[in-house]
């Protein structure tokens, strides 16, 4: 078989194929529910209800989507320049550490939150700077180094939580001291469990979109991603663009850690992120790397997680169905997007 480009894909092709990817994912979900001995339709219904069926459920989904918007954006900008940042998890924790360092100190109330956010972004950017410099200086593949940094960072956090950052009142649990009251992100609406981290995430998505589509740097970033050799030939400083992209990407991922600590948890533990950094890759791909589309993609992914959790309690289908569905949707979607532009011919 061979792939043949399609000059002008029809509207049916543009919309129908991604829709079939979604349908295929739903089919997988039904199949898995049946394997687990549950009624497929009822299981799907429970997932939807658990994700958006009540005010509590919807707020839970928005809360869960917040770190995913940040990590999704981090991956989207990096992948756009074909910088394979698989280390958003490490950058997230770098941000969380800075939030705790500055948030438990004696910073005056008004500057505490901005200082924490800024420090988090700097830390996250620095964490990604290492692998990117190794790439630009020595040609070391950043996929493996960023992946390995995730493990190193998690061990570092574990050390901090048992050592310098350990909460003296923590009854021996490896957790940090709680943030000061002024260092907590306020709720958007009083009484509703949704913090300003979500608002910040929306602002971040818009900002990244503007940077990518309306600035010279964004243009260079996309040029590097499309064809680094042509970009270099056209006078784009490829390595400088990669470094700048890395700083942006690492900073965005770190905001996820800042927002989780300052908005939701109030302290740092080793299970702050159940893989938000890795899930950010699924979010970014489902959004086709478009910063604005990251928001609905993160809501979808968060909905699957929250919905599957609640369904699992009611129907007994293991909650890992959520990860299986996301992996399937990712694979179906990249295939569907390819088939929009190419047709398979024999020979």
């Amino acid at each position, binding site marked *: 078989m061979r*792939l043949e480009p399609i000059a002008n894909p029809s509207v049916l092709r543009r919309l129908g194929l991604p829709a079939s990817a979604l349908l295929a994912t739903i089919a997988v979900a039904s199949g898995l529910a049946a394997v687990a001995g549950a009624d497929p339709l009822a299981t799907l219904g429970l997932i939807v209800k658990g994700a958006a069926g009540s005010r509590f459920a919807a707020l839970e989904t928005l809360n869960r989507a917040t770190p995913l918007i940040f990590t999704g954006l981090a991956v989207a900008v990096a992948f756009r320049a074909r910088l394979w940042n698989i280390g958003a998890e490490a950058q997230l924790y770098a941000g969380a550490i800075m939030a705790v360092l500055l948030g438990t100190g004696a910073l005056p109330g008004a500057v505490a939150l901005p200082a924490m956010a800024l420090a988090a972004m700097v830390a996250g950017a620095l964490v990604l700077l290492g692998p990117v410099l190794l790439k630009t200086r020595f040609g070391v593949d950043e996929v493996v180094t960023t992946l390995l940094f995730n*493990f*190193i960072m998690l061990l570092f956090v574990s050390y901090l939580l048992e*050592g310098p950052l350990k909460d003296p009142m923590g009854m021996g649990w490896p957790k940090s001291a709680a943030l000061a009251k002024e260092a907590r992100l306020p709720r958007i609406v009083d009484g509703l469990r949704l913090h300003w981290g979500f608002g910040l995430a929306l602002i971040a998505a818009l900002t990244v979109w503007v940077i990518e589509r309306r600035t010279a740097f964004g243009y260079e970033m996309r040029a590097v991603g499309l064809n680094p050799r042509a970009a270099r030939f056209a006078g784009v400083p490829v390595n400088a663009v990669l470094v700048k992209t890395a700083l942006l990407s690492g900073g965005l991922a770190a905001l996820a850690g800042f927002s989780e600590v300052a908005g939701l948890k109030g302290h740092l533990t080793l299970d702050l992120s159940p893989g938000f950094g890795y899930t950010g890759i*699924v979010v970014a791909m489902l959004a086709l790397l478009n910063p604005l589309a990251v928001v609905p993609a993160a809501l979808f992914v968060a909905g699957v997680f929250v919905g599957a959790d609640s369904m699992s309690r009611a129907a007994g289908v293991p909650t890992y*169905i959520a*990860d299986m569905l996301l992996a399937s949707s990712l*694979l179906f979607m*990249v*295939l569907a997007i390819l088939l929009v532009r190419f047709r398979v011919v024999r020979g």
Partner: protein
Amino acid sequence: MTALLDILLSATFWAAAVRIASPLIFATMGELICERAGVLNLGIEGIMVIGAFSGWITVWAGAGLWEGVAVAMLAGMLFGLLHAVLVVPFGLSQHVVGLGVTLLATSTSYFAYRLMLPQVTSPPKIEPFAVWEVPVLSDIPLIGPALFAQTPLTYAAFAVAALVALVLWRTPLGLAIRAAGENPSAVDAQGLSVTGLRIGAVVVGSGLMAVGGAFLTLSAFSSFFFEMVNGRGWICIALVVFGAWRPGKAVLGALLFAAFDALQVRLQQTPLGQVVPYQLFLMAPYVLSIAALVLMSRRASVPAALMQPFNRGER
């Protein structure tokens, strides 16, 4: 210092190093085959998980140990086929699909585990492979216990590495596989199918990765835990680079790496371990892998067509 010497001169240390290297050798050979054919397989981490799980659950359900290895291999080949079909004929991003396959294989293992053992808090143990001492040779001091008093899967790991080297460099098939990773158009001009060669290489390579995973449950820990693969797959990708895409060098790299890993565990028990936090020791394998990548980057001999999809009739 004497503590270090004591460790380095103990037979158990070298035996542990060879044991720790065994799963890495299987998986590194698997990745090496894939990359030699021109395909990066980031599914490795998840394929090791599904290998560890499926091999273990098969034995737990009453089958023999070798049947467990076979089932693990088949499961790995299945996920390898998924990766291969998506990235070879369709030419999709090998990074994205690989990570997707890792997520899918890992979550499938966890899903199946919860489905089959819904209530257990600690996973049941199986009777693992027993040590098989080679007569006479295992009595050699230091080398004997390290190399000739291991479980059958460790011997298999070294045999597989030798076989991979032999097939890749001494057979027409091996030449075709390597050519598919260096100059696919030339392979195509010879009338051979680049697509077929690459899919075959990824499927077989993935089978080996899964056996590496199965080593963990069937030969090392006797049980299946979440997170038990713990980045070993990513380390194997670093080992392929470190070994400059050569089986022999990759095996040496795996042994060196495993020796350091065995050393850090033992150093934790020395006076040094009293002052240095244990997390620092645990970081060593990952830091070492990054260091190895930097060290080898200058003289890397990457297969020329690695990660480049081949579409017939396209120039």
